[in-house]
């Protein structure tokens, strides 16, 4: 990494690639709903990636923030009459607050004990949601979640009832959060997170109080994941109990790992491939998760930096070959 070089703007490079993907997806995929689902899970994977890829924290708590965001957005819309943006804001705050709570206790331990604590919190949150069925609908899920129209300063911009309109809204949210995440990564805070991932002892020795940094990483991750959960509830008009299950945490982690930890585009790629794989295979074969298992094993064994890492090395090889070819052509021209 060359830090002396003038840093690329957070609006160029991979941001443009993400923008291209966001524009092309609804055109190439069979439905806008599928594309929306991909972007929502890409957001959840993005939040997870901040913890796993950049800070080195394997958190099984992501379902708490996802499910928590979904419930809070739904409940504030149903009972308090919150609008679209208000509900999303409430979900973000809820996700961040839940993450602060989980983070505060879990980061007191490191390694395997940290992982176990996040697992325990997810189990607790699940049974809490199951028990509070008056609020969450329990096993049946929270029904009749509205999708309010998008209004800004009293003007209705879109009613978001068509799947393409909602996709456009989610896509704008995704791009805003994507740029925000890049800002975070290339900030003093983000570079310190990488230092903590690389060598926590040294990070502390040069003066960083590492627990404060881990906690803020949790809060930001929770806020993003909470927004993803809220958007998911609005997409389905329904907040199922499975949002807050351990399986949801696993899915988010698998998307993050398969896509590639430590790269934001990887999260989009990971979410895209898993959601599409599920969509394609679940109708043909109910045991399609077996294939997911095989895919995960293959990626971990043969592509340690994930699908995005694979794509990157292909691009690199192609560039090398091209520059090699042009050099050869230049030499031949010289010889003549």
């Amino acid at each position, binding site marked *: 990494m060359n830090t*002396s070089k003038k840093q690329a703007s957070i609006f160029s490079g991979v941001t443009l690639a993400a923008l291209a993907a966001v524009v092309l997806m609804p055109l190439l995929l069979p439905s806008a709903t599928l594309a929306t689902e991909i972007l929502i899970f890409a957001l959840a994977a993005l939040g997870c990636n901040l913890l796993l890829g950049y800070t080195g924290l394997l958190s099984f708590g992501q379902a708490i923030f996802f499910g928590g965001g979904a419930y809070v957005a739904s409940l504030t819309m149903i009972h308090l009459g919150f609008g679209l943006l208000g509900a999303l804001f409430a979900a973000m705050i809820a996700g961040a607050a839940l993450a602060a709570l989980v983070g505060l206790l879990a980061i007191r331990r490191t390694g395997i004990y940290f992982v176990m604590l996040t697992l325990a919190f997810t189990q607790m949150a699940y049974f809490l949601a199951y028990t509070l069925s008056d609020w969450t609908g329990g096993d049946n899920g929270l029904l009749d979640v509205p999708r309010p129209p998008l209004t800004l300063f009293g003007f209705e911009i879109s009613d978001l009832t068509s799947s393409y309109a909602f996709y456009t809204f989610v896509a704008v949210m995704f791009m805003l959060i994507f740029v925000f995440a890049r800002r975070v990564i290339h900030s003093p805070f983000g570079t310190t997170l990488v230092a903590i991932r690389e060598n926590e002892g040294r990070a502390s020795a*040069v003066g960083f109080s590492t627990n404060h940094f881990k906690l803020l990483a949790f809060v930001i991750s929770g806020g993003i994941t909470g927004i993803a959960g809220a958007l998911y509830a609005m997409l389905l008009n329904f907040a199922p109990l499975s949002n807050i299950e351990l399986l949801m945490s696993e899915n988010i982690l698998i998307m993050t790992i398969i896509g590639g930890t430590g790269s934001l585009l990887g999260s989009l790629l990971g979410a895209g491939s898993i959601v599409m794989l599920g969509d394609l295979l679940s109708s043909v074969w109910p045991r399609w998760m077996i294939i997911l298992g095989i895919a995960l094993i293959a990626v971990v064994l043969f592509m340690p930096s994930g699908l995005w890492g694979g794509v990157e090395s292909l691009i690199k090889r192609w560039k090398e070959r091209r520059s090699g070819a042009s050099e050869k052509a230049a030499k031949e021209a010289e010889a003549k």
Partner: protein
Amino acid sequence: MSDYILETEQLGLRYGAFAALGSVDLKIRRGTIHTVIGPNGAGKTTLFHCLTGERRPSSGKIRFDGKDLTRQPAHKRVSSGMSRSFQITSLFQNLSVRENLRLAAQGRDGLGALAFWYSDTHRSKHLEKADEVLDRIKLTHLANTDAGDLSHGQQRVLEVGMSLCSDPELLLLDEPTSGMGVDDIPVMTKLISELGKDHTVMLIEHNMKLVMSISDRITVMHQGNILIEGEPEEVRGDERVKKAYLGESGS
């Protein structure tokens, strides 16, 4: 301003019945290179860990620049003006040499580095500091190499360089030549004596040639206590020191 930058007062650390540190009164004068030596198990590393904040002493006090920081956690001592290197090289292996140093410079900001809303290159003072240290430790030509790809000798130099980035008043170096080849040791010796001009340096070291050539003061430790303290010539000639190293304790 006191003559001494660091003072310990009856510093002790017990593990059950075993006293790793008995009662140590160490005074480090401003602007000197002060070396702590002693045979294995003398308590040098325990003393070092108490000074850096890794271990909490069970008795006694540590005063830095007149302030009591006996109970201050390790990371806070950096902003007080104290900085350390590790005996076992501890770098950010997958980051470039320059980024290693830049992060170390950023460390002095403490919680200020929680800022996530602006670019890390926006405030260039940390980068400037990194480049200044790069020049000083003569690794500028390797600025963009990953720290993990450096030779062992270069990694040891970078290890010391990391502790320079926070503009410390006191440098604590834990066996800077640990594991270094004979050819690299003169480089380290020169670097430390250079640093001694701008900083107070306290180091633990085994390489006697280096110790005798650069130290202003030497403290010899033995069985958790200070045996003697003096200038290199005094220590070199002392009978008790010879005995301690030959293992004739108690006779």
